[in-house]
């Protein structure tokens, strides 16, 4: 096992797996299980976006597009063409990855704000396309009666079953991504982030790596989209809204930009926070409802960004390392570190 993953990552992953396996037995009701399924889906999305944003340093405000693309393609393939769900899922991921690849070639020539605008535009275009192209997508009403996920004869029916499937896939993607960032590929991504010119001088084909990681994130997103439609049974253009794309950027930022582990944390923190605020806020403020949670949510995001701009996980880790390095330096100088 150790050969397949770094040692400390392996331990953390095992602990996480055990916790996630036990969790449904502890959670009091189905509602909480379904929230945790969303956490899994968002984690998959956030990992992909984190590879692009945190590692390669390229922003995308249109990541929801590939979530929707995966969902819609899976739905179309499974209903119209009656493909087995699992095959529909793989095919959708392949097609989405391919489309992302060709979209990325022109788009990723842009940098910074221009890239943000272009990806935002992509999201707008895709949402419009879904609404207008009624023949295939069902237009504003969306696409329904998508079959449940089935593996051989076993149909994933209940929320708890879906929970296990979703988290299994999430943990596999997490493990693969941890390996990717600790490799030649991951180092190339980080080098582009830090100094594209230096990276190219060392032989890193920056354009190629940006496009590759963009497509990889799209494949992840597509898988999350497939899981979503298998679980909910329908998908509509509202799922692919810009709001989701922005929320995903927030999850990446809160979790810590260059951190695969941070992705899971960011996804969980934002999702759970949204749920808590939705329940708590109306009790605190009479008349507060759905929309006002966004205000509280924005405030919390601001506080995190001001005090831990590297995100919660990366930020705390950096603080701790700096504190330890300072202590070490003081010790070497013979000064007693103050408590």
């Amino acid at each position, binding site marked *: 096992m150790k050969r397949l993953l770094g040692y400390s990552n392996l331990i953390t992953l095992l602990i996480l797996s055990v916790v996630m396996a036990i969790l449904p037995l502890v959670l009091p009701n189905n509602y909480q299980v379904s929230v945790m399924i969303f956490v899994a889906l968002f984690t998959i999305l956030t990992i992909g976006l984190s590879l692009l944003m945190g590692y390669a340093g390229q922003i995308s405000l249109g990541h929801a597009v590939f979530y929707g693309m995966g969902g819609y393609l899976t739905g179309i393939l499974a209903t119209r063409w009656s493909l087995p769900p699992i095959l529909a899922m793989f095919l959708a991921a392949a097609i989405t990855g391919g489309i992302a690849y060709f979209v990325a070639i022109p788009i990723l020539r842009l940098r910074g704000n221009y890239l943000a605008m272009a990806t935002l535009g992509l999201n707008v275009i895709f949402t419009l396309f879904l609404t207008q192209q009624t023949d295939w997508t069902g237009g504003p009403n969306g696409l329904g009666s998508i079959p449940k996920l089935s593996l051989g004869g076993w149909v994933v029916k209940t929320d708890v079953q879906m929970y296990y499937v979703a988290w299994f896939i999430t943990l596999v993607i997490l493990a693969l991504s941890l390996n990717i960032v600790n490799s030649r590929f991951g180092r190339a991504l980080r*080098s582009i982030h830090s100094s594209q010119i230096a990276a190219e001088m060392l032989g890193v084909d920056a354009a190629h790596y940006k496009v590759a990681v963009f497509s990889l994130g799209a494949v992840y997103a597509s898988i999350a989209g497939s899981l979503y439609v298998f679980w909910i049974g329908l998908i509509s253009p509202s799922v692919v809204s810009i709001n989701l794309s922005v929320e995903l950027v927030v999850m990446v930022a809160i979790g810590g930009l260059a951190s695969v582990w941070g992705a899971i944390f960011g996804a969980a923190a934002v999702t759970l926070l949204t749920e808590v605020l939705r329940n708590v806020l109306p009790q605190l403020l009479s008349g507060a409802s759905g929309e006002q949670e966004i205000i509280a949510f924005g405030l919390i995001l601001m506080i995190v960004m001001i005090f831990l701009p590297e995100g919660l996980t990366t930020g705390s880790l950096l603080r701790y390392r700096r504190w330890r390095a300072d202590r070490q330096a003081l010790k070497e100088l013979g000064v007693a570190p103050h408590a």
Partner: protein
Amino acid sequence: MPETILKAESLKKEFGGVLAVYNVSFDVARGEIFAIIGPNGAGKTTLFNLITGVYALDDGTLFFDGKSLEHTAPYERAARGLARTFQNLQLFTNMTVLENVLVGRHTKSRAGLVGAALRLPAMRREERLVHEQAMLCLEKVGLARRANQLVGYLSFGQQRLVEIARAMATEPKLLLLDEPGAGLQRKDIDNLDNLIRQLRESGMTVVLVEHNMELVMGIADRVMVLDYGIKIADGTPLQVQQDERVIAAYLGAEVFTAVPAGANDVEAK
């Protein structure tokens, strides 16, 4: 006549009407240490950017290792054996010292996305190998001990060495050093001097832009002098030091008095 590794013919680069490099031609022989000097703004770094492909040439041709560099992207030039360091350090500050050098092994390794994700045996073997090779480069510059520190924790002089180690890791045929001595202390300059000589002995060709005349005149086989983007002289260090146009460009001879007269006669052959 030794073999030419880099041949530049009438290079020209213009920035909005300002001629940064104009009609510059030179040859670098395989295995030599070739220095480019000149006052600030003479076009030395621009010349490096033209050779490495950061800027496109407005006119002229470049031949490296017998082949034209036309339509060759910077990363392809790296794969063909061209490496450089930067005047303003361009280290990967989000990585450790070792990781910086590991990126230097990029062109000499293969592992792709699938191999990395699944940690296939071939990928793990390669990863072990590149780690060893990168450590070897760090040992050569004397930084093996700092391998796992973030590069930002190192002193300025050590950071310069990391850049050199990173460039060495690509196993270049030609190494371009852009002011490697800038901001270094006396002791570090001496180390740098030794390091560059070692690189040459290992078969590398070194092209060097440098302001420290003592270093340049002591180490270079040949020197080219630029002023306002134009080549005003080239030859052995001794020849260049006695060139009237060079002396005029530097506003007097005191720049060169750091080297005792005749010290370079031996190297000038």
